């Protein structure tokens, strides 16, 4: 592989690490570790395998057909079908963007002591300015590089000398040791945070922004596999530090301030600041992706010209779409809705809508019109089939579990 190509792959992998982790991944992993120690590591592993397959397919679709997943779903399934997943995605995007903005605000609250509501509008302005003035490459790469600070969670887990035997056992699926409703609620929330529909839409749009073609299919596989794999390592780091720091003291996660303790354990007072910075950067990156994704899916649903690499005057409707989306979600924080509760609720809601989003993938990835000779093989189809089955089960149980164990 040539040096330039290696750099491109490395950058793609870094982007995936930055893009993988968001407020949902941190909150659900910390909750899992605090409540059930290492017992839910297997869910992160299963979720990561699912995400690797899904993201690889979204990238392959975009690289070969030059059409994003949102484009393809409307074109193949028609507006009558597409209107439902897109409406559901609007609702989830609205809530999740609110939660991500909340994550940045909480980080600032932890650093300054000023209540998170006061940060909502300055944070929203910073997000909007970055989207308005930045290009896709700038946003993608800066999020990726700054996101490396989250490796602190992996370092924290190692510094604490985890009981590796117990950790290994966590990767073997097991039933709930106690509080089954809460156990399965967190399991579904972790999956909802990992297999997030926005990743499919965003990744395929990003591949088009980056001008990927058939020659980039190997890179797509590497970025999806290695990048998402590394990203999940960070999430496992969060779970493991929570298991070693919070669980022994019986601390349950019902505020972000408690999750900060996960890094105080291994790094002392500095850990507190490291957590705040990690949370802030991660959520800021996720805000950018979430806001742009809303612009992408509206534009693609209605066939507008779009692109973060275009100047705002060249894609006025696209820029207005993400502007309105940032403004609407900011209101959730201005009125003081608890960011952690909003995050966990959004993750469960994501699980409910997943079948609508994932099922069309099985049809599209076998359509030679779009994929030519790069349609799915039996393994990919088998995995998507399993994922679809899993999403249906999750959709059915998410709300009852939210009520019983959330």
């Amino acid at each position, binding site marked *: 592989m040539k040096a330039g190509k290696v750099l491109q792959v490395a950058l793609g992998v870094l982007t995936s690490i930055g893009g993988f982790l968001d407020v949902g991944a941190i909150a659900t992993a910390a909750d899992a570790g605090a409540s059930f120690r290492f017992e839910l590591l297997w869910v992160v592993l299963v979720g990561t395998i699912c995400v690797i397959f899904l993201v690889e397919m979204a990238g392959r679709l975009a690289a070969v057909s030059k059409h994003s997943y949102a484009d393809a779903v409307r074109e193949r399934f028609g*507006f009558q079908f597409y209107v439902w997943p897109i409406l559901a995605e609007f609702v989830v995007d609205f809530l999740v963007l609110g939660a991500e903005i909340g994550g940045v605000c909480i980080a600032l609250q932890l650093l300054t002591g000023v209540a998170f509501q006061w940060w909502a509008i300055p944070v929203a302005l910073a997000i909007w300015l970055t989207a308005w003035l930045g290009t896709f490459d700038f946003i993608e790469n800066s999020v990726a590089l700054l996101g490396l600070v989250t490796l602190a969670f992996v370092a924290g887990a190692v510094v604490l000398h985890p009981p590796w035997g117990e950790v290994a056992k966590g990767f073997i699926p097991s039933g709930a040791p106690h509080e089954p409703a809460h156990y399965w609620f967190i399991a579904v929330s972790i999956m909802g945070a990992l297999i997030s529909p926005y990743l499919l839409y965003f990744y395929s749009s990003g591949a088009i922004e980056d001008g990927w073609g058939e020659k980039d299919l190997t890179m797509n596989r590497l970025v999806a596999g290695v990048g998402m794999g590394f990203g999940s390592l960070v999430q496992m780091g969060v779970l493991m530090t929570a298991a070693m720091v919070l669980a022994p003291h019986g601390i349950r996660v019902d505020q972000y301030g408690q999750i900060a303790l996960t890094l105080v354990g291994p790094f002392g007072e500095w850990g507190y600041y490291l957590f705040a910075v990690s949370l802030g950067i991660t959520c800021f990156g996720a805000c950018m992706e979430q806001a742009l994704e809303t612009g992408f899916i509206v534009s693609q649903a209605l066939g507008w010209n779009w692109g973060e690499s275009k100047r705002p005057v060249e894609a006025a409707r696209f820029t207005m779409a993400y502007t309105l989306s940032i403004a609407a979600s900011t209101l959730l924080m201005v009125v003081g809705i608890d960011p952690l509760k909003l995050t966990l609720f959004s993750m469960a809601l994501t699980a409910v809508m997943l079948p609508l989003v994932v099922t069309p993938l099985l049809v599209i990835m076998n359509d030679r019109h779009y994929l030519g000779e790069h349609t799915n093989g039996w393994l990919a189809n088998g995995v998507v089939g399993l994922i679809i089955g899993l999403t249906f089960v999750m959709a059915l149980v998410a709300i009852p579990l939210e009520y019983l164990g959330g």
Partner: protein
Amino acid sequence: MADDFPEPPENGTRLRLVRDVLDSQMVDRKQCQSGKVDGIVAELRDDGRLVITAIENGLPEAVRRVSPRVGDWIAALGRRWGVRKGEVYRIPFARVRNTGIDVRIDLDAAATPLLAWERWLREHVVRRIPGAG
């Protein structure tokens, strides 16, 4: 007409209207993304032939396929406040070519209502904000 605009298909060419035309991305002569095909217009002629005459673009038409009533509401809102005045824009089928996944349209979208919202937002909102380019 741009030099690379595809020739019309030969007589007898089979066209899968719903699969290959409806909901497809429209791309104009300047390769500008110009909306999706929201509807297809057919005319029943005196001799009993059903002739496809045009494709349509406009949110009310797309929504009418889900709920005619909601589509009418959106059209009414558009007539009152919309830049396109709720108009569904029709493109004669003679100016339409299906090329693979997209639908090419033989016109300059910038000079039609297809990009009316884009123009309005650009001139009245986006251009007035610093850094819009």
